[in-house]
């Protein structure tokens, strides 16, 4: 099967792959194995970056670098324009109503910690926070820390063996004591696309605000926070083809306005006295210290890149790849594939009867294939399914059908190596 997709802007898949320098270099393996092509199937952990993003970071540091906001000089103005310009790009990218509803953080994890620590500071013993059993540790541990501090209780929407939410339990789990709901949009283990529309609707019927962990959805589907009507939405730049060290917390103005600051320091204040301080307006109230302007430069460029290919085109291609991968992977002997049967995202976790996921990942690496193995920061979900570790292949629009075929071939070879190798 050959790879001949053309994206909306007329770029072929092979032309798109050329935008990603890391895919153009051979990978040097250990022990004198000849360099191989990289088959990068670990996008759910972090995405590779197009040249456009790398160049934007480069350009920032070679031409524009300065601290922001308080500098009246020309570089300060440029750096501020870069930083606030990316904020506007993100606003438009997720269709937020106001630019000041976009708070920069370092990653999804910080976004959620900010929220738990600030919004959650008013929770009381007896208050219930509803999460799900499939949450990434980043949308679980911050609430556990909060629960220890405030005495609030955590409850969980259960998952079934397919890694899907048992939403028939939602009505019982949402009570008059529920003060907050946090749920991941797309599972980084199962590829499940959760019915967040339903969850938001039911929570809102009881006036409960909802956080969507969009770390895995934001890179692969068009997000419209106003249409979703979610109250908070968190995601990471590095999973969205942008640089590391920059993330976002979207929050509705009314909530952000009412929340106390998270960290204290420069930029987030209005007036500081030794005896106490007042806070700056949104969004800066939540942005203490020198921000990652270089990261913002890259993230802005990543959004431009996505817009240039168009999300529709990216989704169409990724849907096709996902279906193809699902079909091929589920046909492999001795492989158990997790996640829903029907509609799903391009995240495939699996185990093999004859070898441990670590050994699978190590074997595949020998052929340049990068997959992840482990608990994927979702230990509670793993425990529920009684699996301690899975291998995971995750897709992006820079992958190809040939790469999937190669993965399948080498999974088969791994099975042979470990069952017949002795």
């Amino acid at each position, binding site marked *: 099967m050959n790879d001949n997709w053309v994206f909306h802007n007329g770029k072929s898949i092979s032309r798109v792959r050329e935008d990603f320098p890391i895919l153009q270099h051979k990978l040097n*393996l*250990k*022990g*004198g*194995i000849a360099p191989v092509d990289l088959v990068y199937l670990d996008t759910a952990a972090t995405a590779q970056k197009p040249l456009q993003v790398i160049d934007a970071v480069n350009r920032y540091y070679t031409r524009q670098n300065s601290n922001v906001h308080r500098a009246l000089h020309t570089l300060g103005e440029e750096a501020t324009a870069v930083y606030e310009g990316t904020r506007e790009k993100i606003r438009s990218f997720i269709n937020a109503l106001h630019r000041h509803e976009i708070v920069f953080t370092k990653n999804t994890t910080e976004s959620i910690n900010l929220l738990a620590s600030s919004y959650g500071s008013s929770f009381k013993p007896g208050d219930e926070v509803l999460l799900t059993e499939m949450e990434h540790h980043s949308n679980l541990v911050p609430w556990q820390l909060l629960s220890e501090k405030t005495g609030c209780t955590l409850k969980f929407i259960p998952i079934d063996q397919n890694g899907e939410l048992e939403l028939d339990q939602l009505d019982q789990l949402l009570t008059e004591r529920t003060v907050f709901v946090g749920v991941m949009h797309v599972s980084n283990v199962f590829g499940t696309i959760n019915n967040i529309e339903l969850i938001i609707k039911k929570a809102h019927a009881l006036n409960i605000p909802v956080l969507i962990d969009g770390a895995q959805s934001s890179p692969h589907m068009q997000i419209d926070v106003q249409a979703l009507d979610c109250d908070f939405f968190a995601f990471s730049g590095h999973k969205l083809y942008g640089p590391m060290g920059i993330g976002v917390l979207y929050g509705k103005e009314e909530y952000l306005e009412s929340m106390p600051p998270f960290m204290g320091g420069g930029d987030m204040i209005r007036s500081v006295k030794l005896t106490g301080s007042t806070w700056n307006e949104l969004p800066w109230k939540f942005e203490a210290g020198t921000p990652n302007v270089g990261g913002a430069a890259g993230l802005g460029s990543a959004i431009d890149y996505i817009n240039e290919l168009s999300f529709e085109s990216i989704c169409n291609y990724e849907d096709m790849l996902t279906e193809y991968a699902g079909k091929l992977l589920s046909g492999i002997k001795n492989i158990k594939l997790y996640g829903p049967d029907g509609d799903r995202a391009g995240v495939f976790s699996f185990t093999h009867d004859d*070898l*441990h*996921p*670590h*050994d699978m990942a*190590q*074997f595949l690496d*020998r052929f340049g294939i990068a997959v992840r*193995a*482990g*608990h994927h920061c979702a*230990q509670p979900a*793993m425990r529920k399914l009684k699996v*301690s*570790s899975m291998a995971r292949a995750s897709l992006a629009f820079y992958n190809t059908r040939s790469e999937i075929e190669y993965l399948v071939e080498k999974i088969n070879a791994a099975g042979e*190596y*470990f069952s017949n*190798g*002795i």
Partner: protein
Amino acid sequence: MAFDDLYQEIILDHAKHPRNKENLDFISDDEIHENPTCGDSVKIAVDFSKDGKLERVRFDGDGCAISTSSASMMTEIVEGKSKEAVLNMIKSFILIMRNEDESSLEDWGDLIALEGVIKYPLRVKCATLPWHALENALL
């Protein structure tokens, strides 16, 4: 090549047919030893003989070929040794694996097969997991 250095026959053999591996459900989950980077876990049970030597060490758990074979070979080599001797062995083994001690595993029987792991820093934790667990069980 390095990959076959890592998965030498002896390792694959111990991984497929681990020695001293038993169901240790009687040990509470709180005493389980986990590798936080991957979720692998191991439990260790130690029987002492009357003269204070390790009579038998058994393990249970869910691990990759590296950690399972390491556990299997470990249970064999420590048998009959004093607690102090074993604690010293654990220290040495961990240092060697982390490449912080350049001694060889030459005199360690089958365990020499694990020397290939040193080149794979992210797998070192796999190889040392059961040793940490044994240390915990002895202290």
